[in-house]
């Protein structure tokens, strides 16, 4: 059996999510190769070759792949992947964009966001935003899989010495072009990748009060999130929303402030390793999932917490 892992990268560095995907691929027990599709991405290929347990790294270095446009990259992956039993990628925004396209080109199902490998053809994945875990069995000879990165500890980034081979295939579907990118410049980590997240809910009362979370976030190196209630009330923009219809996070530490714990919010954060809830309503459902609950007025507790960190 053989598995092709698709590298997540930005043409200059290999992203950690790739290492989580390799960890899942190792459980599948097959020989692992990595495909790097990009432009001027030799450094990424070298980094991938250093991942232990990788047979070879295939580098498709061409302008057509520079921004990993799904229309182009999917054609490449479908071609290279023809020789593999499994095609595996981390469930990042980038890979979620092109992997279903690969599956459709190969006329197979995609198994999205797996959290466990039970056998060569059977996997577990959360559905209904994690309220239910489904075990699914694939009848396809070739499996296209995305991996929920929070379910697998990353493999080591160093210690291997895989061979690096160039892939010459150039695919330009000619239906899409890259216009521009606006990557948020923030000292804070990104919500889905942060090891600490502090989120505010309706209890914050207004958007101005989210400043109370910033000082704590700065001290903890945390990302700031919000509940849907806070977003719907117009306190903060939608891209901060943690929940079933927002972002799914699973940091080491999640601090929920003034959040009652609606189902839709819990679905987005309940896989966090440690959950802290600060709420003045001691019956708030958030306390049922919190490891540490503090019943207090957040306007007292937040400044005190900031000063004591």
């Amino acid at each position, binding site marked *: 059996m053989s598995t092709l892992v698709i590298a997540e990268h930005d043409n200059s560095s290999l992203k950690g999510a790739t290492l989580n995907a390799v960890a899942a691929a190792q459980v599948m027990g097959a020989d692992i190769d990595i495909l790097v599709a990009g432009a001027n991405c030799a450094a990424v290929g070298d980094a991938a070759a250093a991942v232990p347990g990788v047979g070879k790294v295939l580098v498709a270095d061409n302008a057509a792949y520079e*921004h990993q446009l*799904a*229309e182009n990259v*999917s054609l490449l992956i479908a071609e290279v992947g023809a020789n593999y039993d499994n095609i595996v990628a981390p469930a*990042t925004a*980038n890979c*979620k*964009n092109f992997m*279903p*396209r*690969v599956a*459709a080109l190969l006329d*197979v*199902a*995609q*198994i*999205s966001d797996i959290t466990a490998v039970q056998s060569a053809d059977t996997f577990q*994945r*959360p*559905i*209904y*935003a*994690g*309220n*239910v*875990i489904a*075990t699914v*069995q694939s*009848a396809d000879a070739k499996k296209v899989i995305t991996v929920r990165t929070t379910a697998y500890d990353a493999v080591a980034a160093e210690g291997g010495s895989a061979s690096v081979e160039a892939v010459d295939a150039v695919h330009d*579907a000619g*239906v*899409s*072009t*890259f*216009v*521009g*990118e*606006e990557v*948020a410049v923030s000292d804070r980590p*990104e919500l*889905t*990748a942060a090891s600490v997240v502090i989120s505010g809910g309706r209890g914050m009362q207004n958007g101005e009060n989210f400043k109370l979370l910033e000082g704590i976030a700065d001290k903890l190196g945390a990302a700031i999130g919000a509940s849907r209630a806070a977003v719907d009330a117009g306190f903060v923009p939608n891209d901060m929303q943690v929940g079933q*219809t*927002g972002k799914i996070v699973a940091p080491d*530490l999640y601090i929920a402030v003034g959040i009652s714990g609606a*189902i839709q919010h819990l679905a987005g954060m309940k896989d966090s*390793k440690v*959950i*802290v809830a600060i709420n003045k309503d001691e019956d708030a459902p958030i306390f*049922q*999932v919190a*490891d*540490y*609950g*503090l*019943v*207090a007025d957040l306007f007292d*507790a937040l400044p005190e*917490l900031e000063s*004591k960190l």
Partner: protein
Amino acid sequence: MKVLVAVKRVVDYNVKVRAKADGTDVDLNNVKMAINPFCEIAVEEAVRLKEAGTATEVIAVSIGDKSCQEQIRTALALGADRGIQVETEGGVEPLVVAKLLKGVVDKEEPQLVILGKQSIDGDNNQTGQMLAALGNMGQGTFASEVVVDGDKVNVTREIDGGLQTVSLSLPAVVTTDLRLNEPRYASLPNIMKAKKKPLDVYTPEDLGVSVTTHLTQVKVEPPAERQAGIKVEDVDQLVDKLKNEAKVIS
């Protein structure tokens, strides 16, 4: 320009879904059903394109048994002009949904197909991309802004850590993210009017698609329960626990 919008009937997002005791499926008895939130955003976007004079007709399509006509009517009440139901028994997989939608696209030849980025039941996040692949169309997934410009559409996409804008040749596929718009509420007069709008029903055979099964759901079960936590007395104790017990801060 004709716009096709796909809508899915799903469990209302406020409902806490449970696995059946025998683990065969989720329990959907007497559960409130609704239009998938991302699909609602897709309908809103299509209707806005029509209101702006960009789109000439908005067609809402859903795949499922007769009950999904309810969600098509919702889309019609929100402003879609007519509906199409592709009649299937129960749920079908994203790949098959994409093939059925491709069949509808071949019939209707829309310039733009707008779908939700994922449905909140299966959470697959596949159908739009698969449809785009089957039709060799460009795709603007996880869209937060859609601007039609002549024979192109510029789509601003939510990516990890920011936004990316791509330009796609029409026809193209767009899948919606949360920030794209805030859907309106259907007014009572529009709900009444929606009942009279045309709704065609096709079978998969009409579209030349065979409904295949690639994935079998073996079992569903509740996720591992979290251990019940403790209440701390004050901020000092909280900081102490996080430092010395949980060891998540230093």
